[in-house]
């Protein structure tokens, strides 16, 4: 059980502190898009470790298969042919999945206590036994990641193999990557590793290569090395400056306590008005005519 791990720093729909005595180092998965050959070994490894078998789809004439994330596909490769500049074709392949935001919009939006938790190592995990299937996490996510399963109505997404990481193993996708495009370690180490990769890319004609670790969600625990870090949208619409929508902030921020208080005040106002002014009774003679 999740809370027994004692390293839960955040829990959905919970207004008191979570059991967090144990502090673990922040981890991160680094996805080096420039090294990815699109083999989908990571997709297969994810299916295998997590015992996921999505429905067999149809060939849509493109490499993307399955075409989108789903309750049973927690990571998918997204292929895009782009011309970052005229007469230069690039095939950008991005492994899409949960970014494990430091400021998770899904967790903020979730109304079910303990359906979404964030561990001190940064992994954001869904606990489907508490999920009520409302889909608010889909509304809260700035990356369009969680999916409601057609099978059971619960929300699913990449767990960053929290079960493996908890016992000192790396996520299944990392294990399977044949080119070293996927690496895993502490967030600090991954940032350092990324710097080396970026310097290499810079020297090979990618002056805008950089690390994708967006500040708008206080950083992520899945990061990308991008050849064109100035234009993340080239990579199948990776958002340039993602953050939790202000509407979600409004809905889950100030309105929750304020409106709840308003309702309480209205009820009390009625009660005290009755106590102070007394009932409004008919039949007082002054109105008889």
């Amino acid at each position: 059980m999740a809370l027994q791990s004692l390293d839960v720093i955040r829990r959905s729909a919970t207004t008191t502190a979570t059991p967090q005595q144990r502090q673990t180092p922040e981890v991160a998965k680094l996805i080096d898009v420039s090294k990815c050959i699109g083999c989908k070994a990571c997709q297969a490894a994810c299916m295998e470790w997590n015992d996921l078998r999505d429905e067999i789809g149809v060939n849509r004439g493109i490499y993307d298969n399955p075409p989108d994330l789903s309750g049973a596909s927690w990571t998918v490769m997204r292929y895009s042919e782009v011309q970052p500049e005229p007469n230069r074709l690039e095939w950008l392949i991005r492994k899409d999945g949960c970014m494990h935001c430091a400021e998770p919009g899904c967790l903020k939006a979730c109304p079910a206590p303990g359906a979404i938790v964030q561990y001190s190592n940064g992994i954001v995990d869904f606990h489907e036994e508490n999920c009520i299937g409302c889909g608010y996490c889909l509304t809260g996510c700035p990356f369009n990641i969680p999916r409601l399963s057609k099978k059971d109505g619960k929300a699913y997404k990449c767990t960053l193999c929290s079960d493996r990481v908890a016992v000192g193993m790396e996520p299944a996708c990392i294990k399977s990557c044949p080119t070293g495009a996927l690496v895993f370690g502490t967030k600090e180490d991954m940032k350092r590793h990324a710097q080396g990769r970026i310097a290499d890319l810079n020297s090979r004609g990618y002056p805008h290569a950089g690390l994708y670790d967006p500040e708008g969600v206080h950083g992520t625990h899945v990061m990308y090395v991008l050849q064109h870090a100035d234009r993340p949208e080239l990579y199948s619409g990776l958002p340039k400056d993602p953050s939790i929508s202000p509407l979600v902030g409004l809905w889950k921020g100030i309105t929750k306590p304020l409106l709840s208080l308003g309702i309480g005040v209205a009820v009390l106002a009625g009660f005290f008005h009755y106590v102070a002014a007394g009932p409004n009774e008919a039949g007082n003679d002054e109105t008889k005519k």
Partner: protein
Amino acid sequence: MGNDKDLVRRYSVKERVNHWWVAITFILLVLSGLALFHPAFFFLVNLFGGGTWARILHPFIGVVMFMSFLGLAGRFWGQNHVTDADREWRKRFGDILANRAQDLPEIGKYNLGQKYVFWALVATIPVLLVSGVIIWQPYFAPVFPIGLIRLAAVVHALAAFIAILTIIIHIYAAIWTKGSIRAMTRGTVTAAWARHHHPGWYKEISKGSKS
């Protein structure tokens, strides 16, 4: 004019049944809706068989309430237009709250407070329906763009807040104004009640029923 204890018909059977359909569904919606609104109210999901059941039932109950509310709105629409007497009544609102109800303007079947309750619900319930459908998983939400779903979630919460406050006022007014509740439970009020609270309406119906 009749005796104080004489009974005057205020609501027909159909009106009462319709009202209580709306009332019961509204209460169920408030309980299940608050449960998903703030964690402090999450325990209320147990009234519905758990969180998942509360989530499943809430929108269906909402549709039932909207349909029954259409009936209620249609029945009472014509009687809720604001009149000059209502505007006079508003100036005396402080006196009314303090139970100093002498020499009030001649109020018809509904006073301004009741009319505001009516119009607040006429305004918020359709908004709740539309915004609710937009965030309704898994049937309707997937066809709407994410920005609209986010907006609908906020609008749904705000409209629900207004509707809940309105109903708190409505329920309190019924408790505060003695002799009102029987109008909706039994269909009749006393002549004294009608003369005191709704003299214009009382005159009208006494005229009509004079034999």
